[in-house]
């Protein structure tokens, strides 16, 4: 269906090609997952499938790409619209109209289909993707998962033979992601659609993939069965990590398969921990000397008639990392902004070191509470990293070089002369975090920091956050990323509809929840294990113990 023959893609002004000598053949009815670190060329590979690369993006493409027999050299994206449906990273940015039904009809209007055919197809797609109740809704009022499904539906109405999706679940909470993944697998199984999708969060989609395309260093591309390809990768979803640790063969990719292999591991773990409930090192109660750094009571945030946060009390201790979870729109961001003092707050008080940040001028408020917002790029406006750092030092009245040395502590080798927008997602996040840390806030808040980060960057971020906590900051982050929370958080709060509905040690809250339980917890339930590292630590002394016993 899709064939790449000796394809090499080089962008203008780049010295090295993004993709080198790619030979690929994706068959009909296949669900193909594209993986690789950030910036490795996943989006480029997907874009090449409908001609956006290089017709739209510029650059040179050597070799040939054919889709359903059409050469993308002679067919620009618009001429492939009836064969390839393409859904970009941010569905909202790709919406042309502003109501659901019209969005669904847009491609068909350009394919010049008859009105009766269009009407029938719109109705079919509304049913297929469970969108019928949203048909009159303005697109901006939809939730993240709904938007993504509308974007998929809008691509499907043209009856393409291939559907290309760029990170369809990255901005979604676990439940919405499952909705979207369910819709995609339904297309593959029931309609025989060929689907190619790129995704960072392998744990969400790997079990449904027929084959995996891995983009490695220097643009080399490997294709193969999921288990085969994953065997060559060091950053794997927890389920594969656990399988490696326990030596399971073949490597299970779904929770169901993994649980079948798990009983022996569960027994070993029970022996290793001597029947005692596993207690994570990170779950130690904070030192008694550390009293609450942040004390918020009765926080209420409203937007018109909508209550975003309802009477929330929150205390944060120094030296601990807390995570707020909850579905999109449950009030997480509003809570963080209200605590920082910049966002609206209808009622309630916040005390940090005896002061309320909302009562101070912004320059003083950020010395108490620093916030890294969801769109961290909004904070950056200088031409180079160096200028950005100098600006940050000036803003905080810190000695020259403070920001730069903080940045170096967070990540290695960010070039001074680089434009902030050219950095990788992880580097950019570190830069924004460094800028906020120059003011040395007692409390550090991060809104959705893991968006767009690959496994390596997330692991690094986890180290950074633990380090901040060790240095006496109180860290609070909001996120959808269950696996990240499992590695980093001591305490988890769950918000729903503006209320905090759960608050406790990470293990207690995560293990008990059907949608927020990390993979390791699902596999090893009822044991309270959250991450592969926990399990590895518990097993490490085990051989010694057995030797003593024998």
């Amino acid at each position, binding site marked *: 269906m899709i064939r790449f023959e000796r394809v090499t893609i080089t962008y203008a002004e780049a010295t090295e090609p993004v993709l080198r000598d790619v030979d690929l053949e994706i068959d009909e009815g296949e669900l193909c997952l594209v993986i690789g670190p950030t910036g490795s060329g996943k989006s480029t590979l997907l874009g090449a499938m409908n001609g956006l690369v290089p017709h739209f993006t510029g650059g040179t493409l050597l070799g040939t790409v054919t889709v359903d027999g059409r050469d993308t050299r002679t067919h620009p994206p618009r001429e492939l*619209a009836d064969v390839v449906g393409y859904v970009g990273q941010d569905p909202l940015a790709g919406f042309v109209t502003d109501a659901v039904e019209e969005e669904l009809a847009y491609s068909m209007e350009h394919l*010049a289909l008859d009105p009766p055919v269009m009407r029938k197809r719109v109705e079919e797609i509304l049913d297929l993707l469970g969108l019928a109740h949203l048909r009159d809704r303005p697109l901006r009022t939809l939730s993240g998962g709904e938007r993504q499904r509308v974007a998929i539906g809008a691509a499907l109405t043209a009856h393409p033979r291939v559907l290309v999706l760029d990170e369809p679940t990255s901005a979604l909470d676990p439940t919405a992601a499952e909705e979207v993944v369910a819709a995609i697998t339904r297309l593959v199984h029931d309609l025989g659609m060929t689907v190619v999708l790129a995704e960072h969060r392998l744990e969400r989609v790997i079990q449904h993939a027929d084959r995996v395309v891995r983009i490695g260093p220097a643009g080399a591309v490997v294709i193969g069965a999921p288990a085969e390809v994953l065997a060559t990768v060091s950053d794997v979803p927890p389920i594969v990590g656990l399988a490696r640790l326990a030596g399971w063969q073949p490597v299970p990719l779904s929770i169901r398969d993994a649980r079948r292999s798990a009983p022996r591991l569960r027994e070993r773990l029970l022996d290793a921990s001597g029947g005692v409930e596993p207690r994570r090192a990170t779950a130690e109660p904070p030192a008694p000397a550390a009293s609450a750094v942040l004390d918020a009571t009765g926080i209420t945030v409203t937007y018109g008639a909508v209550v975003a946060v309802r009477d929330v009390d929150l205390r944060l201790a120094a030296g601990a990392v807390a995570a707020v979870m909850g579905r999109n729109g449950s009030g997480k961001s509003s809570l963080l902004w209200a605590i920082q003092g910049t966002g609206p707050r209808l009622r309630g008080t916040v005390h940090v070191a005896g002061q309320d940040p909302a009562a101070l001028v912004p320059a003083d408020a950020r010395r108490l509470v620093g916030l890294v917002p969801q769109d961290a790029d909004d904070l950056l406006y200088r031409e180079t990293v160096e200028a950005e750092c100098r600006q940050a030092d000036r803003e905080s009245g810190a000695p020259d070089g403070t920001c730069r040395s903080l940045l170096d502590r967070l990540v290695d080798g960010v070039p001074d002369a680089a434009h902030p927008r050219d950095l990788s997602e992880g580097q950019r996040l570190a830069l924004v975090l460094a800028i906020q840390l120059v003011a040395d806030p007692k409390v550090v808040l991060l809104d959705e920091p893991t968006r767009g980060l690959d496994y390596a960057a997330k692991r690094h971020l986890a180290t950074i956050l633990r380090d901040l906590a060790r240095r006496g900051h109180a860290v609070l982050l909001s996120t959808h990323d269950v696996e990240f929370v499992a590695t980093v958080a001591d305490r988890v709060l769950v918000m729903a509809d503006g209320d905090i509905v759960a608050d406790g040690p990470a293990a207690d809250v995560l293990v008990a929840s059907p949608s927020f339980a990390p993979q390791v917890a699902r596999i090893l339930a009822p044991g309270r294990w959250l991450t592969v590292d926990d399990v590895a630590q518990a097993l490490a002394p085990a051989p010694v113990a057995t030797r003593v016993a024998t």
Partner: protein
Amino acid sequence: MADPRRSPGALASGRLPRALHPVAWWIWAIGLATAASRTTNPLLLGLIIAVAAFVVSERRSDAPWARGFRGYLIAGLVIVVLRVVYRILFGGDYGDHVLITLPEIPLPDWAVGVSIGGAITLESVLAAAYDGLRLATLIICIGAANVLADPRRLLRSVPSALYELGATLVVAVSVAPQLVESVGRVRRARRLRGGSGRGIRASIGILIPVLEDALHRSLALAAAMDARGYGRSAHVPAKTRRLTGGLVIGGLIGICVGAYGVLDETVAPILGLPMLLAGAAAAIAGFAIGGRRLDRTTYRPDPWTVTETVVAATGVAAAVLMIAAGLADPASLQPSLVPLTWPGLAPLATLGILIAGLPAWLAPPVRLPTEIALARRAPSVPGARP
């Protein structure tokens, strides 16, 4: 029982809830506005505003774009007030009913004919108020059209030769709120860095991320449009394209000149009606040639039925009857200020305006979102009746 939206009779007579063709609403509103432009009679103008407001209240939908009518009313009020205040400040001393005398500020000789302060007469204040009210009424009529007809659907019904223009407008309309949102977001972010969000330096700090954001979005949008087939069949020979463009633009210029010629009696007659007709013919020819080349269809096109014709006709009737009333008795439409007279309701003009109120009943009821419609129906389920 009294609710026509629920009574079986309304449905039986073929008036199922649906959206009226946007062009019908615009013709209606322009007719009403034309009527307003022909008079300064405050009673007639007030009646026009009342009729427009009544139709809006009966036939507007719950959509976001339909909530702005209050804004147009406020804008109208502001215009009247400004007009009167301006007249009070910059003098107006004709007539002899002096209301109050302000101290006059002496101006240098070169400012001959301009005065600040002085005697304020009832006549001059009324003249300003009448004039302001006429402008306010025009704006409220256009506002009514904006509120009754979905602006996007109106753009969808532009001739296909103007499709690209329509698409550009649609994108521009959706970009504006995004830009506002983006500015708000970046300003908040700036405060996180300790900036106050004011002053020139801060503006640069806000402008750059906002522009980068806008550029990023527009690229994403362009990519999405391309991937979904936009501009698919635009293989048009350059010659045809130039011919179409020339005809449409030339025609529109002709229409403008012709309309001016028709309205202004001092212009040579050849620039009047003949020019208007020639311009219209050229534009229509351009649309026809341009429309033939485009291979595109419209999803759920708005039908043009008898109802549309009737609604449009009521607006035209208001304009025609107003013009007729003006020809028959000009004084009834321009109440005299010197000497002061009480304005009267010219019967022909009043009839015309009242006819324009009929769409409140003639236009089909607004289609409610299914959930709301079901919820409203619930009490009338037989078993649920008390």
